[in-house]
C-alpha cells in the first residue's frame, strides 16, 4: 500500500508482564507495567480526538439541538389537532429523549465546553427533567464516573434501591427487586431527582435529614417549573383540550422515562460486567482507572439513529473511558478500543438491545433472592410442607 492510501498504524503487541509482578486482581487482570502501556494507548486516543475537535462537532450538536427544538414545537402544536394526538406525543417524546440524552447528558459532561457557547456549556445548561442539573452533575459526573462500579462508593450500583451485585448484602427487602425496578423505570426522572437525597443512607442513619434541606429546595424549584409547563400552562393553552394535552405531556414524559431507564440499565448491569471492591481500587493508577471503566461498562449494538436516540450511551464503554469527549466521536473510537482489548486479552461487553435487556432483567430477578435461597423467609416452611422437592439452590444456578 502506498502512503497515500489509508495508513494502518503499526500496533505493538501488548507488553508481557514483568517477571516479578502480578495482575492487580482477578477482576483487573493486568499488571502495573501492562496498565501503564494500556493507559498510554487510551490517553493517545483521547489526545488525538481533542486535537481534532472543531466545526464538525459544533455543526453536529447544533443540528441535534435544532431537531430537538423542532420536534418540541411540532409536538406542542399538534395537540391542537385531537386526531393527531399520537403524533404529538411521539414528537414530544423524541424531543424529550434528545434533550435528556444526546444533548443534556452530554453537554452537562462538558463535552462541548471547548466551544465557548454559553448555550452548550456544562455549567449553564439545564435540561428538560425534574432533576436539577447542578445535583445531577455531582452524583453523575463526579460520584458515578469517578468511582464507577465500586460497590459501596458508586451509588449508581442499584441506585440505593435495587440489589444489582452479589457484593450487596441480601435483605428480605430485596425480594421486591423486580417491582422496584419497574417503578423506577416508570418514574425514572423522579428517581434521578431523588437520587441525591440518599434516602437509603438516611434510613441507615448515615445521613441526616437536615443535610438534604438545600437539595430539597433545589428539587422543588425545578419540579415546580417542569410541572407548571407540562401539566398547567401548555394544557391550558389548548383550552377545551386541556385533559388531552395533559395526558399527552404525561405520556411523553413516561416514554422518555422508560427509554432512558432501559438504555442506562444496559450500561452497567448486563451479565459479565465487573464490579470492584474499595480495596482493589485503592491508589489506582490512571491505567487502572481506564481498565475499571472498560470492564465496568457494556455497549449496545445498533444503527446510527439508535445511537443518536440513546445519546450514544449505547457506547457506554467509550463514554466511560472518555466522558468529556463529544459523544458523536464514540463510534469512531470504538473500533480502536476493541482492537486494544483484543491485544490485551480484555473483555469488551456488547450486544443487541434485546440481549442486553434480557441479561439485565435476569440479574434484577436473580439478585432479588439471596445466594442461598434457604434464607428467604418462608422457603423453609414451603420446603417442609412439600417434603422432598428439587433443591431451590439449583433453580438459582439456572437463573444466574
Amino acid at each position, binding site marked *: 500500500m502506498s502512503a497515500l492510501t489509508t495508513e494502518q498504524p503499526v500496533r505493538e503487541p501488548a507488553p508481557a508482564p514483568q517477571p516479578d509482578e502480578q495482575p492487580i486482581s482477578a477482576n483487573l487482570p493486568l499488571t502495573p507495567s501492562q496498565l501503564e502501556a494500556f493507559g498510554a494507548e487510551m*490517553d493517545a486516543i*483521547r*489526545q488525538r480526538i*481533542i486535537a481534532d*475537535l*472543531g*466545526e464538525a*462537532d*459544533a*455543526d453536529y450538536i447544533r443540528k441535534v439541538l*435544532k431537531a430537538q*427544538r423542532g420536534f418540541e*414545537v411540532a409536538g406542542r402544536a399538534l395537540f391542537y389537532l385531537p386526531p393527531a394526538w399520537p403524533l404529538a406525543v411521539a414528537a414530544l417524546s423524541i424531543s424529550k429523549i434528545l434533550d435528556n440524552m444526546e444533548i443534556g447528558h452530554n453537554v452537562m*459532561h*462538558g463535552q462541548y*465546553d*471547548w*466551544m*465557548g*457557547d454559553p*448555550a452548550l456549556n*456544562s*455549567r449553564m445548561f*439545564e*435540561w*428538560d427533567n425534574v432533576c436539577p442539573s447542578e445535583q445531577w*452533575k*455531582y452524583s453523575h*459526573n*463526579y460520584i458515578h*464516573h*469517578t468511582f464507577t462500579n465500586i460497590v459501596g462508593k458508586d451509588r449508581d450500583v442499584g441506585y440505593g434501591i435495587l440489589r444489582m451485585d452479589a457484593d450487596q448484602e441480601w435483605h428480605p427487602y430485596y425480594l421486591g427487586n423486580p417491582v422496584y425496578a419497574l417503578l423506577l423505570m416508570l418514574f425514572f426522572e423522579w428517581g434521578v431527582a431523588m437520587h441525591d437525597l440518599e434516602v437509603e443512607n438516611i434510613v441507615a442513619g448515615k445521613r441526616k435529614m437536615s443535610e438534604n434541606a438545600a437539595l430539597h429546595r433545589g428539587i422543588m424549584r*425545578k419540579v415546580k*417549573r*417542569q410541572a*407548571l*409547563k407540562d401539566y398547567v*400552562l*401548555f394544557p391550558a*393553552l389548548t383550552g377545551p383540550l386541556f385533559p388531552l394535552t395533559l395526558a399527552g405531556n404525561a405520556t411523553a414524559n413516561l416514554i422518555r422515562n422508560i427509554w432512558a431507564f432501559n438504555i442506562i440499565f444496559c450500561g452497567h448491569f448486563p451479565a459479565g460486567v465487573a464490579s470492584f471492591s474499595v480495596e482493589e481500587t485503592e491508589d489506582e493508577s*490512571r491505567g487502572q*482507572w481506564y481498565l475499571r471503566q472498560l470492564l465496568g461498562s457494556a455497549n449496545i449494538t445498533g444503527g446510527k439513529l439508535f445511537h443518536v436516540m440513546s445519546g450514544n450511551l449505547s457506547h457506554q464503554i467509550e463514554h466511560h473511558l472518555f*466522558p*468529556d469527549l463529544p459523544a458523536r466521536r464514540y463510534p469512531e473510537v470504538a473500533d480502536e478500543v476493541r482492537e486494544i482489548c483484543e491485544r490485551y486479552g480484555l473483555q469488551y461487553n456488547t450486544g443487541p438491545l434485546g440481549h442486553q435487556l434480557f441479561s439485565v432483567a435476569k440479574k434484577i430477578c436473580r439478585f432479588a433472592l439471596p445466594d442461598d435461597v434457604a434464607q428467604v423467609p418462608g422457603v423453609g416452611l414451603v420446603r417442609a410442607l412439600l417434603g422432598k422437592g428439587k433443591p431451590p439452590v439449583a433453580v438459582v444456578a439456572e437463573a444466574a
Partner: protein
Amino acid sequence: MGLTSTLLASRTLAALTSPHGVDRYLELVNPMWAAREVRARVVSVERETSGEHPVATVTLQPTSTWRGHRAGQYVQVGVEVPGARRTTRCFTISSAASQPGERFTLTVRAHSEGLVSKWLVEQARPGFVVHLSQAQGDFTLNESPATPTNNHLLFITGGSGITPAMSMVRTLLRDGYDGHAGRKVTFLHYARGPEDQIFATELAEIAAADNGVRVVLRHESAGDPLFSAIDLARLVPDFREVDTWVCGPAGLMERVELAYDGSPRLRTERFKAPVVKAGNAEGDVVFSRSGQQVANTGASLLEQAEAAGLTPEFGCRMGICFSCTARKTEGTVRNVLTGEESSLPDEDIRVCVSAPVGDCAVDL
C-alpha cells in the same frame, strides 16, 4: 417593538420555554430576535489605517435588547473563530453614547495574536452576527453635554486607546448646543506616525471647527516629543487640577500616573492583554477572590490553592467531572493531561489538571 419585547421578556413565555429560555428558540428562527441576550449584525467594516496592524471601524446593529451605552464604555464581543470556538474580548465603543437598540461602532486594531480583533478587522462582513454583552465600565463621561460648564476636560490617549476619548468628544459635540462642546476640551493623542493615526480626517475637522476642542496630535515618526509632565504643563499648566481621562499603552499610562502624582482628577482605563511566560515553577499565583498570593510551585492550581489554605470545590481530581472549573483571569496554564498551554484571559479552566506557567491569576 415595545409590545413584542415586553411579550418576549414576559414570565409566561419564560415558563413555557423553561428550562432553556426564550432566546434558545428565537435564535433558531432569526439570530436578531432576542428576549434577553444581546447580539448584533455587522453593518459595515471600514478601514481606518492600513499597515502591519490595520485598524477598522465596525458598525454594529444590536438587537432590541441592547440597553445603550455611555461614552467611554466597552462591550464584550464574542465571535466564532475557525475551529468553532466562541472567543470573547472587550472592545471600547468609539461612537457617541447610544440609546437602547441604536447602532454603534467599534474601532479595532488587528493585533497579530488577537483572534477576535483580527476577525473583526479582516474577516467580518456585513450580515455576520456577533455576540455581545451589555455595555460595561466606569471610565465614562460623567457630565451632561447639554449643560455648558467652565470645566476643562483633558483626554490623553495613545494608539488604539483613542477610542473611549473619541466616544466622549463625539458625544459632547453631538449633544452640545450648536455643535459646541460647551466646555474647554484638550484632546492629546500619541501615535506612531500619520499613517497610524486613527480618525485622522475627523480629528482635523474637529480641530478646525469653532467648538471648544483643542486637538494635539503627537507623532513619534515626525520627531514629536513623547509624553512628559513638562510637555503637558506647557499645554495645560494646571493639569493636576483638570478632570483627565487617560487610556493607552502601559508605558504611557505609567508616565501619566507618575506626572499626576496621585491626583484624584486622573481616570485610567487599561486594556488587558495576554501575558505569556516560559518556564514551569516560576512567578506568583494570585487567588483573586480570597486575595491570596503564593509563589508558584508548579503543582496544579487546585493543589496550590489547598496548600494556601483555600477550600475550592472539587470532584474527581483527574479532569473528568468539571466540578472544579474556575475562571483564570490572567496568565498561562498548562493542561497536565495534554501538555497544552493556554494564555487566554478570562478563560474557564479545570483547576485540578491545570498548572500555572509563570504568573497566573485565578478567581478562587
